């Protein structure tokens, strides 16, 4: 065996080696791929299949083929569109606000020269708090009987019930979501800022660029990629919001999200077919959002390149 290898021409030895490396590669990648197929790919395909049936968990034997009826049911139901609207609203508002505040935090962390580690760590605290706990705390803060938000906001009536109507309940949910995730956003943006060259910013300053000009012409264009990752990350996360809503309103006052609707159909109403259709639609929505965001940023990148 060893004489054979030694006697073989060099080229054959290389392919031999690369073949064994190839085998090693597939052996290394196989476990992860098998798991992903089993717990991600298979469930999606199965949801796609089940969504074509009338299928209740309480009567599994009465499964009946429906075709696309479940999708028609969902897409013609105002409830679905209301929840899509809520979810998109929460996503757009929270990610937008987080982007602005998060950037401000990131900028301060970038500029600050003392106690960097300490400040970065303390900004991470809300990120580490369990969402359920933070949602309870905010629910308490906004609550009618002993909450203190009304007392703090001079323009609010002291007996205003935040959870009594749609808009204020949505606001409370969004505030808790923003508080919880802005630090994470700040961290993502800080990662982007740390890639912006300080020399370039200084050069712009020497050339007489104002703070805003430096921000718009130098800093932001140079951290586009980081902004995109941050927005993508947070938008997809915000779109599947569940914990806050479950704790704070249980979906009352039309505050349901798409995830919440899916949960209700499956766990409370045992509608597996309909729930599967909702799962598929949820997945497609997320894909759509990812697609739109990536497109949006690409267009932007191209425009930025043309400008410069």
């Amino acid at each position, binding site marked *: 065996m060893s004489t054979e290898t030694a006697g073989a021409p060099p080229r054959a030895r290389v392919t031999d080696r690369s073949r064994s490396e190839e085998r090693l590669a597939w052996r290394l990648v196989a476990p992860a791929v098998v798991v992903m197929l089993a*717990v991600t790919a298979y469930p999606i395909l199965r949801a796609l299949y089940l969504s074509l049936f009338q299928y209740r968990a309480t009567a599994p034997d009465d499964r009946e083929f429906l075709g696309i009826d479940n999708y028609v049911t969902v897409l013609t139901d105002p409830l679905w569109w209301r929840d899509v609207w809520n979810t998109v609203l929460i996503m757009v508002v929270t990610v937008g606000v987080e982007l602005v505040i998060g950037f401000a935090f990131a900028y301060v962390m970038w500029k600050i020269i003392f106690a960097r580690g300490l400040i970065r760590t303390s900004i991470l605290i809300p990120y580490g708090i369990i969402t359920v706990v933070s949602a309870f705390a905010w629910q308490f803060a906004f609550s009618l009987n002993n909450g203190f938000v009304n007392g703090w906001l001079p323009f609010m009536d002291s007996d205003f019930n935040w959870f009594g109507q749609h808009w204020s309940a949505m606001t409370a949910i969004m505030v808790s979501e923003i508080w919880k995730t802005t630090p994470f956003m700040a961290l993502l943006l800080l990662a982007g800022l740390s890639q912006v060259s300080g020399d370039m910013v200084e050069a712009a300053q020497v050339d007489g660029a104002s703070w805003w000009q430096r921000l718009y012409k130098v800093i932001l264009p140079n951290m586009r990629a980081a902004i995109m990752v941050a927005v993508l990350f947070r938008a997809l996360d915000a779109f599947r919001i569940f914990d806050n809503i479950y704790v704070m309103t249980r979906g009352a006052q039309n505050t349901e999200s798409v995830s919440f609707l899916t949960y209700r159909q499956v766990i409370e109403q045992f509608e597996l077919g309909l729930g599967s259709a909702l799962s598929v639609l949820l997945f497609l929505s997320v*894909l759509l959002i990812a697609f739109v965001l990536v497109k949006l940023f690409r267009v932007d990148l191209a425009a930025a390149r043309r400008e410069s």
Partner: protein
Amino acid sequence: MTAVREVLTRAGLIAFGALFAVPYALILTASFRPSESVARAPLDIFGGGWSLGNYRAVLADNDVLGFYVNSVIVTTAIVAAEVVLGAAAAIALGHLRPAGGRVVGALVVATISVPIQAIAVTNYLTIDRLDLVNTRLGLIVPFAASAFGIYLMTEYAAAVPASQLDSARVFGLGPLSRIRHIVLPHMRPGIVAFAAFAFVGWWNEFFWPFIVLQGPELATVPFSIQTYIVNPGGLPDWGPMMAAGALALLPLMILLVLVQRSFVRMFAFSS
């Protein structure tokens, strides 16, 4: 003039940061106060007097300790599986790059954005068929591999300088020792940061345990706080709840302090 404005801007930002910190301070101070005093006057941060009573109550309660143990077991198992399977796949896709590896890589990236809720229904049916409902395995197995983790660690594995690999080849190092001595050390910051990121995420996970668990025996911390620390009347027992929340935060803070640097760098990398 600009200096003044900059000082003002920064002061404003710091004040804003403090505003963000206030709710946290309230959660923390509430954890030292009697529940009824918190409920009556939440902002009177010394009201009712401070004591370790809530912590003592939470820690003396075997159930609560059990919730922590459950959380530690489940979270650690998920993170360990995600790191081991993910790093192995990353070495293959980023370093060894077999023919067809690109296709696998693209498929992995495509599944990054799959939300838990979209696969929860069918995963639950599978878990049910395998008799894993209300078991730890049922909490762990669906998340044993992370698409984001594979993607991220692949980037690190692919970033090993070619010159180092070439000289290793010249010295006759086989693929396994190359991986061990060159690729893995390069991937380390990425692995550490991803592990921390995954730990924070799974430690916080509420939805899946909420679906799979049927009783308190295996409850994890977020699930137990929602389900068992809220009074029957629906009003939370604030003191113990906040103490439990603060205790749940402690391991994460230690973790984040330790890995804070590689954490920031990880996101610079992932973009």
